[in-house]
């Protein structure tokens, strides 16, 4: 079925205005930035915490911003046709727009908190995009995987950025980068580096976090084309480039990035050759590109960094093109399986043109921009301070396999005999090939006139990464004469051609080898399962649903917390001598303790209620003895009320069958916790009594009660004057309790059952 049959709503074309306008706006900044100036916008956000909504535009951020908005424009155009007739197209466009804006936020942010917020927004919005086909469980799982991996890295990044800001003394990246020497000399440097790199490596899918990226292919093709060319996965690369002046230029930085980058690049290229589906194959080449970028960001040489900047640009152009081509083939032919495709060149001429141009750029054939990129990569590799041989071989191996992939993607579907496709293929609508063609032609143009089209931006980008004031870069030109990099290019193409020729055999060999290796994806699944098991285990342990259990945990924690604190602080005070207390006071205290024991052990409810009354009255007596007649009066009144109400209600409840502590073990456990809590409270009170009373508040109330409030009863004055709002709150609490009681008794959803009624009546008169 042709896409033109189901037309998108014309209004959805409006979303094109946003990326279009942004592209133009960023383009107008080009001359300023190319001249070496920077632009900064800032609004106070949380001034007290030094958090500002600040944006900073230099060569590096402008490079990314331009790529994001320009490629975004073509992706939006493409997606309208690709998803034509989709009932949720509006939703999709919203997600895509949000994602684009978050991504722009990441690359433009100056404040580290602003950066982090947008960083997390890209994780969230990419989750929505990857899981767009939400009825497919695999799609949901892969979206969640991407979110979990990048979200975990995001948390590490937050910690790293905050430490970085503390060390550098500023939350603004522009200021942090200026304080690079202080950061590198600080004790926390290693910690900061690990945390920040965790964020960058998870986002940019560096080994060993590489597994989520190919899975993210579950997304509709426009999303893959966008996320895996210029945006999401480049955020990690951007971050490493951004903090290069402050965290780079150390041994740890050099080796971590070199190894992770090299392993990712080579391993991803091998895995790319294993695929038979166009999309996963391209996804693995994205990984390879990210690995290469990481590898070169390890260095501080001008050539290497120039290689990074040029390669970011070149890769974005050809990778977005190839993904869109793969999507167009899928859309028109109904499959992306390489084995089933063939002879599409005559049927889809424009798509074929874009694919050929992009593949040539990817393979690094002159005069495409990819050639300049690859030459720079080789020059950079040879200029690497640490281990030029290792880096050069890694780059060569990865690039040779890239040539092969480029050839597979551009030749297999388009040439040869006609394939056996589910749909009868024909050219995609113009909206789906115009983007790839324009981007591919841009790749060619940049290769033909590098000085004209690239130099300004590249120089500004290189100086931003290296933290230099003046725009500078290694000279960009197509022809450097016959030298070692050129020879290496020749070897690359030859090796790539060889691999292409032997591809079916190579593929099955890799496939067989991979089956024997543990897959990182399975490891992830294992970890997730453990995590869920752990959560279930601890939920079952803590959330038993038994109220008794919760109370036990609360009191045991209280007792243990108090006890440990008392012992650690050496605050345990034991009464040494028998206190000298008058006989009648002993009598009152003895009454309280005796009545308490009766309450606990009473078999009848009425006995317990009476004992509770005795306790309340004895406490009131204590209040009388120690100059608190007001309190004693209130206590007596309330105590009488309570006894009456409790007796009334309790007698409607069933009699005690047992004491509710279960078997013997239960009794002992409850008794131990109870006595332990009691002892902890007693000791705490004794420890508090060791210190002289702080009478400042009391003195104030005594001195001001009459002069300020004209009241002679100080307690009353405190209640109704000094702490009147408190008393008002107390009245409100009692009123609410009263209303709630009324509601509980009067408002009933249904009539209660006759059986309960009968049981209540039967057990009510037992005592």
């Amino acid at each position, binding site marked *: 079925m042709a896409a033109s049959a189901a037309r998108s709503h014309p209004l959805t074309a409006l979303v094109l205005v946003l990326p279009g306008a942004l592209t133009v706006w960023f383009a107008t900044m080009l001359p300023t930035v190319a001249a070496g100036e920077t632009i900064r916008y800032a609004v106070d956000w949380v001034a007290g915490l030094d958090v500002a909504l600040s944006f900073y535009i230099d060569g590096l951020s402008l490079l990314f911003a331009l790529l994001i908005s320009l490629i975004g424009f073509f992706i939006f155009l493409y997606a309208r046709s690709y998803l034509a007739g989709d009932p949720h197209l509006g939703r999709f466009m919203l997600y895509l727009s949000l994602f684009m804006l978050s991504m722009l936020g990441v690359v433009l942010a100056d404040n580290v908190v602003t950066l982090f917020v947008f960083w997390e927004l890209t994780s969230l919005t990419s989750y929505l995009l990857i899981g767009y086909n939400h009825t497919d469980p695999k799609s949901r799982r892969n979206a969640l995987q991407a979110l979990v991996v990048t979200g975990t890295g995001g948390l590490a990044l937050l910690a790293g950025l905050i430490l970085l800001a503390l060390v550098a003394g500023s939350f603004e990246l522009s200021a942090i980068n200026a304080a690079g020497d202080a950061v590198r000399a600080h004790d926390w440097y290693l910690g900061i580096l690990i945390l920040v790199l965790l964020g960058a490596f998870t986002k940019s899918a560096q080994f060993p976090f590489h597994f989520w990226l190919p899975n993210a292919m579950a997304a509709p093709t426009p999303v893959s084309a966008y996320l895996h060319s210029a945006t999401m996965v480049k955020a990690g690369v951007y971050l490493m480039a951004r903090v290069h002046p402050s965290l780079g230029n150390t041994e740890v930085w050099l080796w971590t990035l070199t190894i992770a980058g090299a392993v990712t690049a080579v391993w991803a290229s091998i895995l790319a050759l294993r695929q038979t589906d166009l999309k996963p194959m391209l996804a693995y080449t994205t990984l390879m590109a990210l690995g290469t970028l990481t590898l070169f960001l390890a260095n501080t040489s001008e050539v290497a960094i120039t290689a990074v900047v040029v390669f970011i640009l070149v890769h974005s152009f050809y990778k977005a093109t190839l993904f869109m081509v793969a999507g167009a083939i899928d859309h028109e032919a109904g499959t992306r399986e390489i084995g089933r495709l063939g002879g599409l060149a005559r049927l889809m001429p424009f798509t074929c043109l874009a694919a050929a141009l992009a593949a040539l750029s990817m393979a690094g054939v002159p005069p495409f921009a990819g050639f300049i990129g690859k030459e720079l990569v080789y020059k950079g590799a040879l200029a690497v301070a640490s281990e030029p041989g290792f880096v050069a071989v890694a780059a060569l191996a990865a690039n040779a396999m890239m040539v092969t992939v480029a050839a597979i993607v551009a030749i297999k579907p388009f040439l040869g005999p006609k394939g056996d496709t589910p749909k009868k293929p024909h050219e995609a609508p113009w909206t789906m090939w115009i983007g790839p063609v324009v981007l591919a032609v841009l790749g060619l143009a940049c290769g033909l006139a590098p000085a004209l089209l690239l130099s300004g931006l590249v120089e500004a980008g290189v100086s931003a990464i290296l933290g230099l004031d003046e725009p500078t870069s290694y000279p960009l030109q197509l022809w450097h004469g016959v030298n070692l990099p050129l020879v290496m290019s020749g070897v690359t193409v030859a090796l790539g051609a060889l691999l292409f020729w032997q591809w079916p055999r190579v593929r099955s060999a890799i496939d067989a080898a991979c089956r024997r290796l543990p897959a990182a994806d399975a490891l992830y699944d294992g970890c997730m399962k453990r995590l869920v098991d752990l959560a279930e285990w601890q939920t079952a342990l803590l959330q038993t649903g038994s109220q008794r259990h919760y109370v036990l945990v609360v009191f045991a924690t209280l007792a243990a917390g108090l006890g440990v604190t008392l012992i650690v602080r050496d605050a345990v005070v034991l009464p040494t001598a028998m206190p000298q207390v008058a006989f009648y006071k002993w009598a009152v205290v003895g009454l309280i303790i005796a009545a308490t024991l009766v309450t606990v052990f009473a078999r009848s409810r009425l006995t317990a209620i009476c004992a509770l009354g005795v306790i309340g009255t004895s406490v009131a007596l204590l209040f009388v003895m120690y100059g608190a007649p007001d309190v004693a009066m209130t206590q007596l009144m309330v105590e009488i009320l309570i006894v009456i109400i409790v007796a009334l209600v309790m007698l409607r409840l069933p009699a005690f069958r047992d004491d509710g502590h279960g078997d013997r073990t239960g009794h002992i456990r409850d008794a131990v916790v*109870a006595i332990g*809590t*009691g002892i902890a409270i007693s000791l705490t009170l004794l420890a508090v009594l060791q210190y002289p009373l702080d009478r400042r508040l009391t003195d104030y*109330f005594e001195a001001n009660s009459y002069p300020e409030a004209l009241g002679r009863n100080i307690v009353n004055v405190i209640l109704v004057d000094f702490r009147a709002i408190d008393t008002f709150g107390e009245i409100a*609490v009692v009123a609410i309790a009263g209303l709630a009681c009324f509601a509980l008794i009067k408002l009933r959803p249904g009539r209660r059952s006759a059986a309960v009624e009968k049981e209540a009546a039967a057990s009510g008169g037992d005592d």
Partner: protein
Amino acid sequence: METVLAVTVGVLVAATVYLMLSRNLVKFVFGLMLLSNAANLTIFSAGGLIRGEPPLVPEGSYVPDGVVANALPQALILTAIVISFGLLAFALVLAYRAYQELGTVDTDEMRIAEPRPEPRTPAPAGKGTAA
């Protein structure tokens, strides 16, 4: 005397905890009543015990004569007594209504919010609202 009261508070708290650990809702409510007494006594003894004189300002004078009892803990306890009365009344009515609806005062049987994880045989006593 503060030492004696500290020990008394300990006994009250131990009894409170023991009662509140019971499955029986009635015992739990008794524990709640004891708890408020224990808390009030704690505040009272921590505020310093002074024999005799209530905190009053006599006629014709601007400040109390001599040493009087500490007024601040008394004010706090007055508030606490009233609030714990409100709490207790509510708890009582809640217990009563829970018994009417669920037909039990055993808190281990009250499992509407958090049902037992394993499937269990239906207990007719637990379905008071079914009628």
